């Protein structure tokens, strides 16, 4: 067992543990931090696999963007240290059963299937250079179109978020 393998298993364990903390923690802030950590360790796995670009993206967007956004919203909507209301036991139980059943089923499925790697191919290095070229290429395997499309999505999200969340002055007067 090589070092990278051991690191992987450690990272994997951490990811799962903090993932679990995210969903089990009664303190919302703690949950958010666990999520942050979990995501960071996932980024670690990416780095381990040499997909540095995605790892970086993970840290920038997820850790730096999304989780921060979430934490902001927690600040906006919670008093600090406030415990979350307890879910009903029945609901928890049901959720647990479904999740476990799903997990078991999925595990069974992936264990049944023999994954076949593409035979005799030349691997492409997932470097920033290659990714960048493909991203903006419009020939084969060029991703410029989705890239453009997603811009509009982001624009729309921006507009939508602003409309909903912005606090207009006349609103407060009412």
């Amino acid at each position, binding site marked *: 067992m090589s070092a990278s393998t051991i690191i992987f298993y450690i990272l994997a364990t951490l990811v799962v543990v903090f993932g679990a903390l995210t969903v089990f923690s009664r303190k919302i802030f703690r949950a958010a931090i666990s999520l942050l950590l979990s995501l960071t360790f996932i980024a670690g796995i990416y780095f381990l696999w040499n997909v540095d670009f995605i790892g970086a993206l993970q840290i920038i967007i997820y850790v730096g963007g999304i989780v921060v956004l979430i934490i902001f919203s927690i600040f906006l909507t919670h008093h600090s240290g406030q415990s979350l209301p307890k879910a009903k036991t029945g609901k928890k139980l049901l959720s647990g059963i479904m999740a476990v059943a799903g997990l078991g089923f999925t595990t069974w499925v992936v264990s049944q299937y023999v994954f076949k790697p593409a035979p005799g191919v030349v691997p492409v290095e997932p470097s920033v250079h290659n990714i960048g070229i493909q991203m903006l290429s*419009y020939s084969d395997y060029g*991703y410029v179109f*989705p890239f453009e499309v997603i811009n509009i999505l982001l*624009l729309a999200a921006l507009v*939508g*978020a602003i*409309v909903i969340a912005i606090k207009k002055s006349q*609103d407060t007067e009412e």
Partner: protein
Amino acid sequence: MDIVLMFRFEIILAVLILAIFIMSLRGFDTNVKCFLNTMNVLLLLNFIAGWLPLSEGSYFSDFFRTNGLIVLQKNIINLGLLLISLTSYVWLTQSKYRLEFYILMLSSIFGVYVMLSSGHILMLYLGLEMSTIPIAAMSNFNLKEQRSSEAGIKLILSSAFSTGIMLFGISLLYGAVGNLSFASVIANLHPNVLTLFAFAFILAGFAFKMSIVPFHLWTADVYEGSPIGVTNFLSVISKGSVIFVFLTVLYTLFGGLKEAWLLGISILSILSMTIGNLFALRQQNAKRFLAFSSIAQVGFVLVGVTAASTIGSASVVYFVLIYLLSNIAAFGVIGAVADSTGSESLQLFKGLYKSNPFYALIMAVALFSLAGVPPIAGFFGKLFLLTAGMKSGLYVLMGFAGVNLVLSLYNYLRVVKYMFIDDAEKPLAPLNRNRQLTTALYICLIGLIVIGFVTPIYQYIDSLCGI
């Protein structure tokens, strides 16, 4: 030039979005009527532009492709867009966010186009998300109403969940086939444990957007809570476009799993029809009522989908066109009633024929069309779906469809009864009629009557589906 023609829908949309931004910068949107009318004219132009000569082909390494059928589908969506814009006129004049409404709506449409033209699962996914996310924002546009916020959060969260499920399936599919362009999937797809598993997950994602039972539960709440224009958009454009895409997904992408999806679709179809109709039985809110009705309608669409051939897709496209007109008309009338009374209760429709014969007649035609009663076009739409469905000889499915024809007739007749037979305790005053709404309703009315009899429309669709 070819490229411009190929991309004309997307280009025009982008230009429109840009134009709105410019208008807002120029303060043009403060003149409400002028702005809305301009928008309607622009959308009309957009609709007309859709009929420019066709150029087929694919571009960007199959990320984008187009052909006659896709163009037609986009045109149908454009028609719906125009009509929704017209029917939402009153609401928009009262709303503060008309500009944002248009931006979001057009972005969503953009997503729809992407989805329709996709030749790669990535684009499918992007389109699907892009058509949904803006709507979630839009459904929260009645900011002061809790129902509206609830609708927004329910839509966005359940949509996110469903996306997660679907993506999980896509990721497994990726593991099985190695490349997610349609061509590669078709070539490498074989029925095995993993692909069937992945297929079920992907199917669920689409089923969610089409509100197929048991993935439909968000539908009624979101429809009820959203502003009526948004509900209309959800029920017509979102649903219709996903149905269009669904055809491609099943017939082309998962053609290799036909045996499997035939069974799955049959079951989902039966569930949708039955449960949709059973829930509609009790509804007193017009929007919820139509939500469940649309769930049942999708069940019927799935019956047609089982044909897995030209007749299947032709009948589905034809039906969606009719469904679009019927639903827009129905929502238009509901909107008119709701705008003046502030309530969407079906009880308000009592005695409507006496107080507002025009609206009552339009509503009746729309409902008859949904129920599939001749000579309204819905009859043909529904029966062609059944005709397509019988192709596979699934008697059980047809039996359920038959029973549901009866159930759905009851549901629609209930409203017809309110309007024509019952007397209101307190009759509505004659509702005001604005030109925009009336125009839209007339277009729907004429469409619903004409489409059944002017057969070139169906022949045209059929010829396109035959490709």
